[in-house]
């Protein structure tokens, strides 16, 4: 068997307060997580459980306090060049048009046909007519689609997504989820998908990992999603198997959500 696309072994991240070194916060502790090549893995957990921290570690933006990260069997040093990252917050460069934003990564790599490839991707996410617009002239959904094209245009082997659709309304969101699934099915990349929405996680992934409430979160459950593909995220929710899975995962997640909520109340 070949090495997994992404492998986190015993990763812990402890943050130290810059002004008061005695103040420490351990976001995640001893997390072991692998994503196989072409596998779609979702991580769910209560708010503030360090989901984004894990993703930043996988992207190479954040160095773990302990533990190792391996990308296709090679230890990760610095930025993970084989990964594309779709952020939760607005990440487009506001001074570039939609087309120029999609072009950015190709341009950084010095590819001669950057413009053609970018406009092709823009067309694929349904924004061919909006290439000349600046991000502030686009709707939230369009900006997310531009981000998606920007990330996928580089054809990364691993795609990291941090609640990419959490800011969208439910209809746009389902459209985007189906689009992502279709694009994923065509290229079969490894995907690490972070979300707090269990429905979304089950509908999209091959495997769902549940994180415990922070601080010092760790995986406490792993579920294989054996729903048939191709799926439609709206329709799949009505199938009995989906409901079963949902109940099983929610049974694990619920206690953690309550725990996380209690902690936030106490703080």
């Amino acid at each position, binding site marked *: 068997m070949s090495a997994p696309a992404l492998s986190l072994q015993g990763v812990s991240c402890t943050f130290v307060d810059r002004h008061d070194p005695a103040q420490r916060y351990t976001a995640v502790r001893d997390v072991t997580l692998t994503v196989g090549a072409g596998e779609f893995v979702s991580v769910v957990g209560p708010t503030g459980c360090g989901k984004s921290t894990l993703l930043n570690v996988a*992207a190479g*933006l954040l160095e773990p306090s302990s533990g190792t990260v391996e990308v296709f069997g090679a230890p990760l040093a610095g*930025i*993970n*060049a084989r*990964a*594309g*990252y779709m*952020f939760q*917050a*607005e*990440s*487009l*460069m*506001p*001074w*570039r*048009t939609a087309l120029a934003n999609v072009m*950015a*990564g190709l341009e*950084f*790599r010095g590819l001669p046909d950057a413009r053609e490839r970018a406009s092709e991707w823009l067309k694929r996410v349904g924004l061919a007519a909006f290439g000349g617009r*600046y*991000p*502030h*002239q686009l709707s939230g959904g369009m900006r997310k689609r531009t981000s998606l094209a*920007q990330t996928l245009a*580089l054809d990364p082997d691993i795609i990291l997504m941090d609640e990419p659709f959490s800011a969208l309304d439910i209809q746009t969101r389902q459209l985007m989820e189906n689009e992502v699934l279709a694009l994923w099915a065509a290229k079969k990349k490894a995907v690490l998908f972070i979300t707090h929405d269990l429905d979304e996680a089950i509908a999209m992934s091959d495997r769902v990992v549940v994180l415990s409430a922070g601080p010092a979160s760790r995986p406490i459950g792993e579920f294989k999603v054996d729903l048939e593909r191709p799926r439609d995220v709206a329709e799949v929710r009505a199938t009995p198997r989906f409901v079963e899975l949902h109940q099983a995962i929610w049974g694990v997640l619920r206690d953690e959500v309550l725990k996380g909520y209690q902690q936030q109340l106490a703080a």
Partner: protein
Amino acid sequence: MKFWNLIKPRPGNLRLWQLAVLVLVFGLWHVLTKPGLIPPFVFENERQAAFFFGEPLVIFGRVGDWFFSNADIYQHLWVTLVETVLAFGIGTALGLVFGLWLALSPMAAAILDPYIKAANSMPRVILAPIFAVWFGLGIASKVALGVTLVFFIVFFNVYQGVKEVSPVVLANARMLGASPRQLLRHVYLPSATSWVFSSLHTSVGLAFVGAVVGEYLGSSRGVGYLILQAEGAFDINTVMAGILVLTAFALALDAAVGRIEQRLMKWQPKSGETEKL
């Protein structure tokens, strides 16, 4: 009442009302200073008001002479313009380079911090005589003064601009494979430029102040020089004419900057802007 409704201030006749204010000011000025028009009530004789405040009609005549009959102001305006543009250009470039450098190397910024604060709080106009000694009475000393004024405005804005680059945009650019140089060129610089442009009106204004003050303190050409000459001869009308020309010139400069800004900053959202289809 009907008449008032006709001329009541509204967006449509805004320009007319603005013009009316101008006419009113000059009208009052004329009435209060024209010798023999009304009996003097502050000064002892009827010529004194005109001596201290000038007379609008004479001032307009002087401006007309400058621009049309003698046409001798153009060389002075040209010198002042060149000084302003040079001071602005050099000051902006220096501010940009230093701002980027210090914002990206926190250690250097920490070491230089007190000196930057000191240099910024120093009344820099006082450097004008020193610059005159160093660079002579020509253009260079005025440009140097303007540069010291412009530099700090641009510097602080660039510094701020780099510090306030969205961490997400930065992380995204790094994930897209930007090298440190590409980050500088494609992320830090555009972000800093937006801050520079937000201060553009101030910095052009200060470049202009540097040029005129420099001329006023010692020069052989320029509008500031004209004013200085007239002042030496107690020619208040020419002084006022010079001030009028400078004001109009500054307004024109500001309008030009506004046009450039609109051109380059079209990616920035304006509040309340609607989609034009």
